[in-house]
């Protein structure tokens, strides 16, 4: 078990820079999730740590020891690949024993460790089978078994659940979490699935274009996103973003959201340009209702465009009178467009398509972002 440190690590493939310079410390025994869209550099970071790629600049340390000059073998890490990468010609037993054989371990010790790993993952009945004879979930377990069998300092997991169906994914996700907690091995887990990140990670690093946008506990990231990218990436549906008009009224900077001028007790920060509201913060009322004239609530008129019924909750998508900000793939400026606002509604009720409604939310729930998309602390209000 060990700390992992990336110090000013840069990676370029020819002219193309994937990671422009990254600092990150993964603490001993921690499960850190690297979360981000495809091509954000999260898998590259994992491969750099594994020794499958060489950093262009910077230094990587495992347990305080620089490992840049070491090959994968000398780093004592284990990796679970997205497609499992089980050796097709070897049985489950052969796959589990392979890393031990490569380290020249004696037969008796090899057998003991292999059986221990097989037992931990319920693989004993499958030891004589080849990967082609296994189901997706079983293959995933064998890949996990091959990783734990030699008791590495660090686990690397590269989207290990993405080839599983939704139901199995939930089950294996829980198993991975339990296993990691039991073994206490420092783990870097790469995914583009925010639910995996939120449920598994002790901490989550949200990445974009090779840069960590925010690093923190999952709940922090959700409740206090550092910028528009994180706000838009975490949450399903993502945070609603609006670009209100601002005005000084009655001695305070106020924002016009829907029909209401919203103010905060401490005033809306000068730099604020965008307002973000999580779907669960909205209440949907009949058309014409408002924030009761209160300036600590916003009220936006709209009409129901569609409703997704998810059983315990419904997501109502409403066409708003306000222009809605859409996140673009590149950095800002962010585009305002005629868009939909999402509201998460708990419980039953009837909302008809086309029905006129009013979306209300407490002003204190609004996240404020500046011109560049960076969050402005909201405890001002």
């Amino acid at each position: 078990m060990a700390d992992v440190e990336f110090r000013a690590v840069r990676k370029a493939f020819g002219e193309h820079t994937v990671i422009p310079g990254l600092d990150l410390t993964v603490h001993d025994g921690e499960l850190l999730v690297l979360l981000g869209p495809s091509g954000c550099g999260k898998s590259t970071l994992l491969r750099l740590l594994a020794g499958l790629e060489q950093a262009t600049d910077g230094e990587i340390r495992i347990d305080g020891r620089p490992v840049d000059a070491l090959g994968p073998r000398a780093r004592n890490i284990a990796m679970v690949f997205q497609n499992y990468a089980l050796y097709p010609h070897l049985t489950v037993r052969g796959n589990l024993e392979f890393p031990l054989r490569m380290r020249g371990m004696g037969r008796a010790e090899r057998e003991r460790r292999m059986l221990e790993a097989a037992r931990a993952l319920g693989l004993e009945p499958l030891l004589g089978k080849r990967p082609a004879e296994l189901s997706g979930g079983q293959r995933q377990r064998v890949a996990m078994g091959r990783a734990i069998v030699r008791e590495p300092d660090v686990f690397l997991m590269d989207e290990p659940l993405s080839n599983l169906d939704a139901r199995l994914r939930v089950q294996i996700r829980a198993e991975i979490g339990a296993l990691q907690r039991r073994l206490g091995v420092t783990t870097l887990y790469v995914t583009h699935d925010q639910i995996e990140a939120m449920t598994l990670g002790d901490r989550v690093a949200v990445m974009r274009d090779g840069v960590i946008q925010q690093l923190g506990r999952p709940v922090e990231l959700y409740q206090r996103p550092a910028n528009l990218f994180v706000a838009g990436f975490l949450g399903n549906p993502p945070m609603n973003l609006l670009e209100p008009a601002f005005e000084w009224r009655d001695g305070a900077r106020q924002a016009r959201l829907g029909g209401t001028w919203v103010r905060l007790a401490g005033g809306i920060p000068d730099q604020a340009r965008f307002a973000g509201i999580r779907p669960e913060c909205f209440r949907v009322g009949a058309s014409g209702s408002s924030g009761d004239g209160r300036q600590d609530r916003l009220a936006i008129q709209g009409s129901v465009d569609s409703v997704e019924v998810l059983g315990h909750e419904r997501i109502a998508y409403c066409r708003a009178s306000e222009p809605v900000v859409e996140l673009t793939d590149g950095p800002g400026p962010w585009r305002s467009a005629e868009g939909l606002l999402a509201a998460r509604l708990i419980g039953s009720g009837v909302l008809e398509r086309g029905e006129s409604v009013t979306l209300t939310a407490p002003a204190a729930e609004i996240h404020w972002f500046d011109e560049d998309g960076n969050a402005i602390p909201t405890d001002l209000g």
Partner: protein
Amino acid sequence: MSRTPTRLRAVLAYALLLAFTLVFIAPVLFMVVGSLKPDALVLAEAGSLRAFLPDSVNPDNYRAVFERVPFGAYLLSSLIVNGLIVGLGLLVNAFAGYALARLRWWGRGAMLALVLAVLVIPFEAIAIPLFYQLSWLGWRDDWLVQAIPFVANPLAIFLFYSFFLGLPRELEEAARVDGAGVLRTFFLIVLPNAKAAFASVAIVLFLFHWGMYLWPLLMTTSEGVRPLPLGIANFYTLPPLQWGDIMAFGVLMVLPVLILFVVFQRWFVRGVASTGVKG
């Protein structure tokens, strides 16, 4: 309504296939049937359909093959020379193909282009310079000299290269993370998953060189190291010219190739079907 045209199309297709099959199989059939006929009848019936119908099974020609020439010595030479070419060729060409497909080294692209360029140079073009080169070294008249120039084969390298490119890279990366070096990754992971490529290349190398005539003719003088193609040529210079014997020799010469094909053919049709890598 639509059954008749479908059936008609099928009948036509099969008729066409049958015609092609007959065209290709006719010389082989002629050889097999001719080997079982009295010598006089081989050419006499060559112009008629009887050339393809044996009157009786007559092993005399086969007996003659063993009596007139040292068939066993020729066969042994051919097996040794081809065994060397195939055995060493699999190793050398697989290494080369793997290096081109997977390892990162300076000049890799240029080397790949060179291998492809060499593909189009016929052996006859380099046979004489090679002959002088090896004669100057004093290296002649043994099995090795017949095999070594053919061990590295651009087509085999290219076949391996293409196959290794298609092999999931993660398998090798997993092996490296598990602690295997390049050689152990190659021998323990890549090689067992490349059986289809090895079988294909083995057959290609064997077929290319089983009938090799020019090079052994240039390099050998002793009957003890000469291969089958030089043996069959003896019949043209050993009077009397017996076509039945030549046919029988031909059949005996083709048999090892057929056996090899039958043994390895399942590797042709079966790719790497059972893979542990999904997607």
